[in-house]
């Protein structure tokens, strides 16, 4: 069942499933092809791409956390031209729309990346990754620059700080959807080097924060929201949909259990097809049968009570 995950218009992104990987989780589309049925995913979000090449960060880049990890990569990539040259044919062969994730390094670079991507048939939409300290005015300018230079839908991935104002700003600028939110930044001590490492934090503990944010945004803006952050089960993904997300992005859970994203996609795919309009949340959970069984047991119990009361002593 196809549905729109960006605002309606002449350029709208239509997907078959509301589940996709977060930027960078499946690299440039050549990762875990033997483990995941890509056909089940709604879209493919590429690894972050910048206008000019970026080198990997120095020193320790991975810090294991309790139930999660901190990752600091420096967003290394060879620049949009080389990326397009290397992956164009692969993206053309993917069975779902491709969303090019662009690192919003500067207004000029966003503009150039958008026009470069606009000419590519292999790219179906753009996701602009806004940095953590960005002001709403700058975010609005960045998204407006991208929107002006491409006919393709533009998604804005916003950080969790100041999310409400940023979401309003990017919606005003013409973003087709908001991806909420980018993994938060943190600092942790590497057990290997003993040094403090600054990076993005991933793991199931992020989910409550992201979920609250999605719920707030869904009431504050009228463009679709793609929920992201700490999704580690089918139930987590459903929680985001309940909170008002139109689709979800799954992050590092895929590295730990690659099949999980496919299971979530299968589960939410079923949800989209089978959920009744106006149904209560627990009516479409897999535990629905359980609910029915309990209701049946309760009815039986009530009936038994009634019959016991009616039995003459």
């Amino acid at each position: 069942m196809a549905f729109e995950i960006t605002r309606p218009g002449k350029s709208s992104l239509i997907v078959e499933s509301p589940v996709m990987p977060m930027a960078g989780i499946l690299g440039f589309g050549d990762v875990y092809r033997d483990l995941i049925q890509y056909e089940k995913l709604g879209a493919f979000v590429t690894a972050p791409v910048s206008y000019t090449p970026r080198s990997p960060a120095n020193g320790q880049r991975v810090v294991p956390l309790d139930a999660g990890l901190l990752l600091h990569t420096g967003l290394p990539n060879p620049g949009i031209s080389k990326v397009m040259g290397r992956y164009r044919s692969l993206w053309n062969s993917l069975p779902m729309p491709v969303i090019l994730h662009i690192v919003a390094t500067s207004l000029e670079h966003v503009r150039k990346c958008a026009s470069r991507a606009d000419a590519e048939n292999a790219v179906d939409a753009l996701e602009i990754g806004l940095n953590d300290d960005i002001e709403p005015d700058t975010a609005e300018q960045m998204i407006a620059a991208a929107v002006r230079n491409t006919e393709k839908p533009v998604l804005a991935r916003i950080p969790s700080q100041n999310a409400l104002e940023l979401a309003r700003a990017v919606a005003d600028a013409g973003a087709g959807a908001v991806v909420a939110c980018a993994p938060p930044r943190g600092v942790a001590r590497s057990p290997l080097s003993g040094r403090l490492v600054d990076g993005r934090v991933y793991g199931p503990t992020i989910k409550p924060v992201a979920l609250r944010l999605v719920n707030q945004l869904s009431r504050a803006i009228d463009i679709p929201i793609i929920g992201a952050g700490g999704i580690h089960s089918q139930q987590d993904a459903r929680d985001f949909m309940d909170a008002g997300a139109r689709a979800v992005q799954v992050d590092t859970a895929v590295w730990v259990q690659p099949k999980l994203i496919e299971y979530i996609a299968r589960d939410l795919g079923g949800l989209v097809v089978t959920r009744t309009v106006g149904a209560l949340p627990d009516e479409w959970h897999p535990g629905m049968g359980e609910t029915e069984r309990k209701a049946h047991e309760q009815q039986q119990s009530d009936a038994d009570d009634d019959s016991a009361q009616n039995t003459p002593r």
Partner: protein
Amino acid sequence: MKEIRAIIERITRLNEHYQWLHLAVDAFHADIRAGQSLLARRLPERWDPYLREQWWPVATLNQMLIVERSGAEVYEPGEIVSLMGFVGQPFRYKRTLRNVLLIADNTPPSPFIMAIQTLLANRIAVTLVLSGSAANYPTAHLPPEVEVVVADDHLNWSNRVMTVGWADQVFATVAGDDEMGRMNAIWRIFSESRAEVPANYLFGVFQPLLPCGAGACAGCMLPLKQGETALVCMEGPAIDLSTVALPAPY
């Protein structure tokens, strides 16, 4: 890459620091070659610990895979683990290889144990240098043909110049606290001991933490000379140190 479930059939303790797990695996995973590793996760699924662990195979036998693990970890026979692999490329040897030098600096030589069997079977002489904490590694289980040399914490050992000159190819693995810095120290030893360090001679066997093991996360990306990069999980673990942009010494 494939993901399978394997059963720990037997556990052999080498000493208090190291143990071998005998895993029943499918035919595909029994085809693993020296240099390649697996990303393992213990079952039932929990999110803590989060990352998969890198497990180095030391031998394969009739759909049985033996991996080396720290003796501090507690495993039970019958336990089921999830394995993803293979990660990385097999070690590449020179055709004219006669003498190989393996160096483990403050880390166990686990990535080399499987290679030793292959090398000896091909009549190649093997010298294993254990430096720093690697000297705790038990060597009684190694074939007697392997020359084991214990070096100090600064990678000094007797006849070092002779050993370096004699080796046709060198593989070195180092502790993860400052992997690039330690690789740089190895590079300096060889560049000081030889007129030149040719290409395909001195390989660093890198063991960074591997969140994805498939080239997506860039957590294991190495900077190479001329602005290029290499992914340890895809092109490694053995990377020619003459191509790596090693940091300047402190």
